[in-house]
């Protein structure tokens, strides 16, 4: 098991390193002279030279790359040229919105999606099953940001239960901050919950046909008891894989939904950075997103191995 985790950790580090290399190549080498690129063609040669100095662009590419990596390992992501602040601080401030939003959305989609999936599987072929599956089919097809707009119309404008947008910082009024995240997280959770419900139902139905369920019934259990005691845990395995992928994409999906609710999250930071051509900020923000995605997949893999004894031993004979 330790060897397995170690192996995955190594793969995780390798993925990040290659990802960093790709990002560095795209944002540092491809534009030719990043300083010129950032300042645009109308910049004076003096200001370009000053920025080059400031960004350390005179050093050879490999030194710059290693310097960047080494800096990040120590928590130094460079200084944003446009905002004149350390990138790490800027990102850290925005993660306070993006991360709670993703976690909240994930929790909602699990709490709603899994029970509905189980319910549909147990009532297979009945009216309830059809109703849940039609809802899920629709839920998968609704773009989360558009659903966010609908939610705003109903709950903020129509019923006035919740704020239509904006965000109160956590240290001012924690309750108000949470209220500000409810509609965005619901918007993010809808498609995810629909997918989870569908996957859970399929997995349970598949498990129902397995030989070990027949064995459990032969022991004296009814179908329902056998599925509950032996099926659900087995059915959760494919669900777990999906969960990992989903969280990864939720983190990225928040970028879009933040737009609807004018939330000061990572997404808005990135859009400002793009429009101002702040390569250093874009570089830092994308690598953070990729770390989040990759780390989630790593965690999924390890959890999977903890649940499934067959996987645990594949690397420790």
């Amino acid at each position, binding site marked *: 098991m330790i060897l397995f985790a170690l*192996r995955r950790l190594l793969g995780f580090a390798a993925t990040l390193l290659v990802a960093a290399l790709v990002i560095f190549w795209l944002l540092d080498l491809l534009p030719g002279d990043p300083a010129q690129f950032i300042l645009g063609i109308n910049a004076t040669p003096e200001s370009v030279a000053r920025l080059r100095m400031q960004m350390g662009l005179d050093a050879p590419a490999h030194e710059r790359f290693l310097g960047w990596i080494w800096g990040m390992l120590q928590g130094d992501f460079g200084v944003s040229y446009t905002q004149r602040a350390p990138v790490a601080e800027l990102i850290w401030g925005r993660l306070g919105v993006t991360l709670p939003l993703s976690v909240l959305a994930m929790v909602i989609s699990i709490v709603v999606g899994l029970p509905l999936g189980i319910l549909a599987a147990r009532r297979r072929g009945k009216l309830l099953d059809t109703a849940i599956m039609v809802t899920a089919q629709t839920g998968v097809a609704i773009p989360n940001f558009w659903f966010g707009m609908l939610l705003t119309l109903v709950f903020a404008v129509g019923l006035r239960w919740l704020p239509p947008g904006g965000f109160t910082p956590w240290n001012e009024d924690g309750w108000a901050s949470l209220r500000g995240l409810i509609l965005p997280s619901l918007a993010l959770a809808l498609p995810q919950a629909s997918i989870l419900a569908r996957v859970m139902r399929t997995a349970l139905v598949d498990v129902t046909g*397995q*030989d*070990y369920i*027949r*064995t*459990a*019934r*032969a*022991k*004296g*259990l*009814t*179908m329902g*008891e056998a599925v509950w*005691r*032996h099926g659900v*845990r*087995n059915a959760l395995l494919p669900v777990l894989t999906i969960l990992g992928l989903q969280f990864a994409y939720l983190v990225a999906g928040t970028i879009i939904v933040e737009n609807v609710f004018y939330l000061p999250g990572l997404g808005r930071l990135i859009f400002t950075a793009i429009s101002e051509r702040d390569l250093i900020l874009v570089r830092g923000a994308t690598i953070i997103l990729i770390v989040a995605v990759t780390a989630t997949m790593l965690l999924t893999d390890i959890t999977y191995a903890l*649940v*499934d*004894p*067959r996987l645990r*031993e*594949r*690397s420790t*004979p």
Partner: protein
Amino acid sequence: MSLLEVSGLSVRFGDTEVVSDVSFSLQRGERFGIIGESGSGKTLTALAVTGLLPEGAVMTGSISLDGAPLPQQERAMARLRGKRVGMVFQEPMTALNPLMRVNDQIEESIRLNETHGATQIEVPYLLKEVGLELKHGDRFPHQLSGGQRQRVMIAMALASRPDILIADEPTSALDLITQRKVLDLIADICARRQMALLFISHDLKAVGALCNRVAVMHRGRLVETGRAATTFSAPQQAYTQKLVAASRFDVRPLSRPPIGNTLLEVNGVTRDYRQGGMLFWADKPLRAVNEVSFSIASAECLALVGPSGCGKTTLAKIIVGLDKATSGTVRLAGTEYRGSDLPKALRRDVSLVFQDPFGSFNPRLSIADSVAEPLRLEPGLSQETIQARLVEAVEAVGLDAGMLTRYPHEFSGGQRQRLAIARALVTRPKLVVLDEPVSALDVSVRGEVLALLARLQADFGLTYLIISHDLDMVRAMADRVLVMDAGRIVEEGKPEQIFAEPQHRLTRDLMAARLPDVGIVASTTPDRHPRA
């Protein structure tokens, strides 16, 4: 009063009736066998008895246990079957919950069927009864062999001290030696516990060895029921006669060309497989084939026998050029090669017939396209020549040339195996390697295919290398036998000699594990021999 009474049982899916009007009874302590080929409805009959029919199956007729009809209510039925009936299924690989330790799975069976006042059965006792050690209980199913998993299944079946044990093909996924051990275990336990047995199998010998009364099932109906000894020695129905005949592999001796000079020589062939591990700390390689040397003379029929995993299939793959030896060489007609480097010009001289007739044809290609594929090894053939060769090959295996334009799904297993043989012959090879050529076929067609192989060998002077675990088939076909164990050849000789005086431990075990032929001597319980 019978323990189990089944009368007028029918099972249908929609409009198709798969079990029709089946009636039989089972007395206390009796061992009753149902024989049938795949699709005969025998498994559904067993599932009906235990109320485990799949969704969509509609059952009519009556089943009663101790004179009382089976309860309609699901929970009552579940508890009744847990309490009174133990079941062992065919697939030991998938029948256990992969995420639960063996101890917990057996424990669950015990707890579910506890009766107040009765002395408690404990897991260690059951493990011991089925011949497992205590340490096996702490393992997960995937850490056990097929035979061990089947023992776990039996332990779970015994946990409630049932009156009836239903075993549905419990050994057909196991190798010969393990099969015999599990059959003996079932016989032992039934005798010790005075438990009735309902044994379901396609294997006449297994049924003959275990049961005192048998029924033969064909297309959903019981065609014959009677005492095992009399049914097998004097079968009344044509279908039963056919089954009994097919179980014996009587291949008529044909006049064959004399055995000639050495055709193929295998010299010190070894095959290592790299096992998992990472780049730097690779594990010790697995040695599948270990320093094997032998030769085959032209027009000879050589058999390579051994348990599953002994390396015989790997060796066959090296000879036909699908795998590559780590060291050692194969020499064919003066040319040396190590496996996949077999030169194209020589590939047409060796061919392979696969075990599974269903996987050996690409469903998207017509039979003609598939059978003509090996002719790529003879470049420059005209369309007419190719067509002529196809017709020749297909007619040689007793099929009609009109079948060439059809697609694989239109053919039965036996026909496909004939077509696979036609494909192997289309390049007019010298050596044909037959990997378990009949073991995936229904019993009743095995004899036909073997007779065809024997005739083709006589007609074309072919050299055969038969890979098999089936000793009776080997005895019927082979001129010489090699016994393989753990990658090595451990014994060699004429079949009569090996059958009469096996030398090596494995060969002796294999001989001992053979089940007695049916119908020749009255079969009773198998003779006891110590469990390994």
